[in-house]
């Protein structure tokens, strides 16, 4: 897999170096830096999991948002997965970059999360889980955004 490194910000590397090693928490920014500069869902998934949506099963993952988000600066998203997974990510296809958040899983975490995200305009969110069985599973939700939200 060719790694094209778009990162020019030394600040990102500096920030990841501050994470306390004693916690033994994973850090997807260190592990997969390309995922955070990828502009499309497939490029982000390739960087994170080595696969694209075409390789994933649209099953076992639920992602919910309002059908119409009144405030694109704070779109509520609920995501959950009912298979054992190593990683659970939220992406979208309208912002400058695609990856929103990646929840790393261990033996006690449960892949069920709620967050509020920015969406620049109407489009789709994708919750993608990397199963312990090596497969990718995803759920997709398309929504309208009344007032675009990357402008704060």
């Amino acid at each position, binding site marked *: 897999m060719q790694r094209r490194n778009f990162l020019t*910000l030394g*600040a*990102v590397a*500096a*920030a*990841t170096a*501050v*994470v*306390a090693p*004693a*916690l*033994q*928490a*994973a*850090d*997807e*920014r260190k592990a997969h830096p390309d995922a*955070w500069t990828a502009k499309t869902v497939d490029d982000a998934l390739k960087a994170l999991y080595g696969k694209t949506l075409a390789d994933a099963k649209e099953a076992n993952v639920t992602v919910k948002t309002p059908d119409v988000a009144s405030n694109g*600066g*704070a*779109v509520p998203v609920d995501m959950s997965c009912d298979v054992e997974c190593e990683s659970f990510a939220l992406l*979208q296809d309208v*912002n*400058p*970059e695609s*990856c*929103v*958040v*990646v*929840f*790393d899983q*261990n*033996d*006690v*975490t*449960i892949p*069920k*999360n*709620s*967050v*509020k*995200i*920015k*969406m620049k305009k109407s489009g789709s969110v994708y919750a993608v889980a990397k199963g312990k069985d090596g497969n990718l599973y995803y759920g997709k939700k398309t929504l309208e955004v009344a007032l675009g*939200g*990357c*402008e*704060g």
Partner: protein
Amino acid sequence: MGMRIKAKLKGDVVKVKAMAKHPMMTYDIAEKKTGSRDNANFITHWDGNVNGKVVFDASTSQFLSKNPIVKYEFKAAGFKKGDKLVMTWVDLKGKKKTGHAKIK
């Protein structure tokens, strides 16, 4: 305080709702409002542990909302009411903030 955390033990699951105080300024907003993308700053990593055991691990982007909220759950086995949940976030500029709450 920087972080507000509520952790509740319900059956065999601990449910957590956490909010961090952070502008989560995107590159585009930084450029538009300050003239420089270098002023962008947002939480890049957010985690939680109980007695040293990691119960939450999120790598995050500029696209979480301002003053981001997250809800998560973890298995309660081995944890009990009164245990302390400690959460830490780190941002792009390297600032670190820790908050904690007792599991209720």
